């Protein structure tokens, strides 16, 4: 809607002062729009600048190693041979394990808090979950190392090694020495860390489902599960996926908790019980001591690759949502 000038309004309005006032407000409205546009542009600019500066810093590594940088599992600071495969693999696998644990649990929490829990319980339990989100990640790391790792090493991992490790197809994934620290432990700790994020988004969107929709479903005789699966979830699908990818984004970039319990070993192994390394942990550990230019450039290139990985994951999420929406004819 174009801004009406005082002259245009003049004939329509008796009082000239009112016309002037309207013009002033229209100008203010236009200025407000410009400010908002600038804010959005600023965010995009910062994002682009961060990605560009990391690409610039990592140009030496990409130029020296080429495509092999992405698939090489070497990480030798003395021989100046660097490859990003082990950190990328560690980041993806630990985040995948975290999602496998966090999504069902968060869904259960959101379901419980919106459908099943008595009203007096919803406030305190909800607050307790949000408190989990406020715990600093280094505390998770310390708890993980000093309480969780010995528990895993003594009770859980030997059991996993003996029982699941012998199953034909997925056995090699779960076979290994019960060190305690490793991909599985890191994945579990990460999963616990992202539960509050995913569950609070899910709970908020579950609450936005119109009461009439839910009540009609109940009135027709649906069980609680049928209501949630067939009415609530389809209604809130895109927001739920958004919440899941919020949690995934956190898991991909998590540094301190992972470096405590993942083992920081630049070794590739099929077993989830073995230690590995992640992009964020590698950069945090080795940045201050990188004593050669190619070493520093490789670390910055790793940062750029984390950017790329997060971007690819988010793009997949958007595509998935788009195709789901299209199937529903929206």
């Amino acid at each position: 809607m174009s801004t009406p000038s005082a002259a245009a309004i003049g004939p329509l309005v008796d009082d000239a002062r009112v016309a002037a006032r309207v013009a002033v407000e229209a100008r203010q409205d236009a200025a407000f729009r410009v400010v908002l546009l600038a804010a959005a542009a600023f965010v995009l600019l910062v994002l682009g600048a961060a990605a560009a500066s990391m690409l610039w810093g990592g140009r030496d590594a990409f130029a020296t190693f080429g495509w092999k940088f992405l698939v090489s599992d070497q990480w030798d600071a003395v021989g100046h041979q660097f490859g990003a495969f082990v950190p990328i693999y560690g980041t993806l696998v630990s985040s995948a394990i975290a999602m496998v644990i966090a999504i069902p649990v968060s869904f259960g929490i959101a379901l419980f808090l919106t459908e099943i829990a008595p009203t007096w319980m919803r406030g305190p339990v909800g607050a307790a979950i949000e408190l989990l989100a406020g715990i600093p990640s280094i505390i998770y790391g310390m708890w993980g190392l000093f309480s969780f790792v010995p528990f895993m090493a003594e009770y859980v991992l030997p059991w996993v090694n003996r029982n699941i490790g012998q199953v034909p197809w997925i056995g090699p994934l779960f076979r290994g020495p019960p060190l305690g620290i490793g991909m599985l432990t890191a994945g579990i700790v990460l999963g616990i860390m992202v539960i509050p994020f995913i569950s609070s988004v899910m709970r908020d969107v579950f609450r936005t489902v119109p009461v009439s929709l839910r009540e009609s479903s109940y009135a027709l005789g649906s069980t609680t599960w049928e209501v949630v699966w067939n009415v609530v979830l389809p209604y809130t699908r895109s927001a739920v996926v958004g919440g899941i990818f919020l949690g995934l984004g956190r898991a991909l970039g998590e540094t301190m908790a992972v470096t405590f319990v993942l083992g920081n070993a630049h070794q590739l192994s099929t077993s989830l019980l073995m230690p590995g390394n992640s992009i964020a942990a590698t950069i945090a550990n080795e940045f201050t001591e990188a004593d050669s230019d190619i070493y520093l450039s490789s670390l910055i290139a790793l940062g750029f690759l984390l950017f790329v990985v997060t971007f690819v994951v988010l793009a997949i999420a958007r595509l998935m949502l788009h195709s789901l929406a299209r199937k529903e004819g929206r």
Partner: protein
Amino acid sequence: MKTFWTARIHGVRSLAALAAAGLLVHAASAGEITGAGSTFVYPLLSQWSADYSTANGTKINYQSIGSGGGIAQIKAATVDFGATDKPLSSDELAQSGLAQFPVVIGGVVPVVNVEGVAAGQLRLDGTTLARIYLGQITKWSDPAIAALNPGLKLGDADISVVHRSDGSGTTFNFVNYLSKVSPDWKSKVGEGTSVAWPVGVGGKGNEGVAAYVKQINNSIGYVELAYALKTGMSYTVLKNHSGNMITPGLESFEAAAASADWGSAKDFSLVITDAPGAQAWPITASVFVLVYRQPKDAARSKTAMEFFRWALEKGQPQAKALNYVALPPSLVKSIEKYWAAEIK
């Protein structure tokens, strides 16, 4: 009335003058200098700076970000001095206009977490240690370890190797020693502040390695002696260059420092691992301080050098209390001569 106010004004003026003089005096003696670098020496530097501050008023602000970080910060001139466990070569020093001198000596000790093995019970030698870290010896029951420890029951468990995940001067001294005693290690891995470890998990900092060794059964790691003693871990005994089994401690570190040939090293650029002395601990490490030869801020440089003079001449009791070895008096004299010659 006039005399009343004149007296007041005189009073206020003299009070202000006194306060200003007091502030000036305070500012002159309460300087602050900043340093960054080695985590190895951090416990001692923080004790020295606390004592120097009570004696003198000057505050030393030291950030233990690792030797590589210390070198980078002093080269960028963002701090007044850097501390590193890995000495720079004379060429590197000349290129950056830096001077280098040792301040204290400590030792790196292997620590183990094996059931039934107390501190100082396990005996190892350089070759066996290198083979464990290469992944060639994988079990505690290996004949090479049993040969060195005839009476000790070690069990059959797998050895879990722990190393540093971050680059560090402690690592540098450790792998420098392994390179000297094992040609296999030297060709396969080499030495540096960060190396491509063939096996094992990485802990962040001396504290991280100590935490991992304590948590993981049947593990072996390497930490600075103060960390091993403070956390009550089982350190091992090592066979040195002369063939004697040496227990880590101040006497064996002192023996290594005394038997090292400081005179021949320009800018004190000497790594004293695998020292020749009969009672020398094989993995002894010196900590070096880097300062500018021609500093931009002469006053701050002077304050820093006064602190180091105090530390080298009077700081021995604190060093001993924290399990470091203070430098022998002859070495302190050569360092002071070097200061007079090199640092303006």
